[in-house]
């Protein structure tokens, strides 16, 4: 439905609607923008107040000194970044592990999510009774709060009372129950699993939407010409899926990179341990070292998000059809 919706205005060309055409032609271009303002102003105000202003505030905070109560006391220069208690130089922070984790977290979660979702979408694209029901069931991890889903995994993986642990022992996968969440490394890998788990539904839906756009007659023709199922997939279906895969990949990169609750709930080891990513570290910094240092680290994360957003706008070209 959104398909026909989004392409409709493109046909109407760049002029305003006929009813206002004569009036609009006589007013200046600036006049047209001014006429739009009352309609857009509430949206612009909210974005200015709750997205742009806190961004500026964060940059300002990153260069100011704060005491342990969060009270500001003058300029800090680069002290919040590379000072004795700076974000990147604070003694007990295992930076090598944290950079590695951040890269592994994003790369492994996004790639495994995409691969799983490609297979799952292919399966759900077949015609069989009950596939609508299956589509509903895979919504579960998408609609459910990530906090609640992660909390169940945390409970299920407790060494003594956890049912997942008992299941792993009963099926012989584990010799004895294990306290997965008590060790930063195993907690990290459980978190990777949960992050993939909650990312699959959106990704599968996006790829399924892409599969709808693969013309059946071309597949039919390729089959007549003797192309095998594998050839048909890799040479026809997969190239046509590229826009959907690109959109899903980039949206997942930014979501996974910014994911806080999964690692926060599953990693029960306190302090600056080796289970952090740069995102969870921001919140640990905020609690221990104050807003200045936390802002300094946030700026690096912010810059990465901007790069991904730029890539999204350049590669996916989301506004293409409304131009």
């Amino acid at each position, binding site marked *: 439905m959104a398909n026909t919706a989004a392409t409709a205005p493109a046909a*109407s060309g760049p002029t305003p609607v006929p009813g206002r055409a004569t009036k609009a032609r006589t007013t200046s271009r600036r006049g047209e923008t001014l006429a739009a303002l009352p309609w857009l102003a509430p*949206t612009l105000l909210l974005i200015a107040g709750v997205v742009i202003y806190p961004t500026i505030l964060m940059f300002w905070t990153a260069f100011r000194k704060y005491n342990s109560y969060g009270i500001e006391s003058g300029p800090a220069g680069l002290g919040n970044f590379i000072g004795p208690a700076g974000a990147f130089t604070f003694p007990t922070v295992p930076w090598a592990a944290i950079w590695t984790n951040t890269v592994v977290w994003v790369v492994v979660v996004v790639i495994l999510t995409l691969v799983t979702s490609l297979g799952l979408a292919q399966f759900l694209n077949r015609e069989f009774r009950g596939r609508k029901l299956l589509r509903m069931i895979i919504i579960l991890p998408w609609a459910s*709060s990530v906090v609640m889903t992660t909390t169940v995994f945390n409970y299920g993986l407790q060494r003594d009372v956890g049912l997942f642990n008992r299941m792993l022992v009963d099926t012989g996968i584990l010799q004895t129950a294990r306290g997965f969440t008590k060790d930063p490394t195993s907690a990290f890998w459980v978190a990777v699993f949960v992050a993939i788990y909650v990312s699959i539904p959106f990704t599968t839906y996006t790829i399924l939407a892409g599969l709808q756009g693969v013309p059946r007659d071309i597949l039919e023709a390729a089959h007549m010409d003797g192309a095998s199922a594998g050839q048909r997939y890799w040479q026809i279906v997969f190239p046509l899926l590229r826009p959907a895969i690109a959109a899903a990949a980039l949206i997942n990169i930014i979501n996974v990179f910014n994911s806080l609750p999964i690692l926060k709930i599953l990693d029960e080891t306190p302090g600056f341990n080796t289970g952090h990513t740069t995102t969870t570290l921001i919140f640990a910094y905020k609690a221990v070292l104050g807003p200045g240092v936390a802002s300094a680290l946030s700026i690096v994360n912010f810059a990465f998000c901007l790069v991904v957003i730029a890539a999204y706008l350049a590669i996916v070209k989301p506004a293409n059809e409304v131009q």
Partner: protein
Amino acid sequence: MAARSGINAKPSLWVTAIGSIIVVVFFSFPYALMLLSSLKTREEITKIPPDYLPSIPQFSNYLTVWSSDVVAPAGSLLATVVISLGATLLVLLIATPAAYYVARFRFPGRLVFLFLVLITQMLQPTVLAVGLYQEFSQWRGHLVWGALILINGAFNLSFAVWIMQAFFATVPKEVDEAALIDGAGRLQAMFLVSLPLVWPGIVTAIVFVFVNTWNEFAAAFVLVQDTSLQPLTVSMPRFLGMYVRDWQYLFMVATVAIVPVVILFALIEKRLVGGLTAGAVK
């Protein structure tokens, strides 16, 4: 009918059946554990090693939890409901005119506006959490709910604007013009003529904003210090680490918290992708 082959081949029953079972089990097992755990007694939920099923399902948990002063979910549920409804109403009020106007008119700055809105969707509260904390940390008491309404509203605007403008664009301009000729103002034309025609887009926007706000964690986590004002996503996970082991209540609350949003999401599933990718994938 002749046996079909090639791309029209009927998928093998076995592959379909086994595949379906795997999908159902994989995507429901944590929620099954959640539901089963919510029906256990306190003794069963802390039993070592745990039993798979509650001996007698304790449906009474769903009643007694409200009077449990340890978990006390009523306040958190109220916080979640108020913030979610507030953010939904806010988005509806401010995104509808914007979506209507960009669907109806071409003007210089229109694309800049659409891109700006899109960027806010990709920038999440998490990366700006410290800035948001600096901005809103003085909003004490129930005002903090107001802060969260503004934050969730701002970061969910994009979806609403994109999905609604796509729907407004399907309404023929002549429909509006007839109303304008009859003497209606532009705002009246939008509310009385166009709005009733785009209700599927509006329902999609409402559900999406509501569900996303219902599940939001990062902003609520940094802003709401007062435990009695925390929404469910912040207050519930705390109980796992506490010495109190009334975890059956935790999972009962979690079940109550996910059932409504899963149903709502299932209603709009067909239109989610178009809104999330701003029309790039339909």
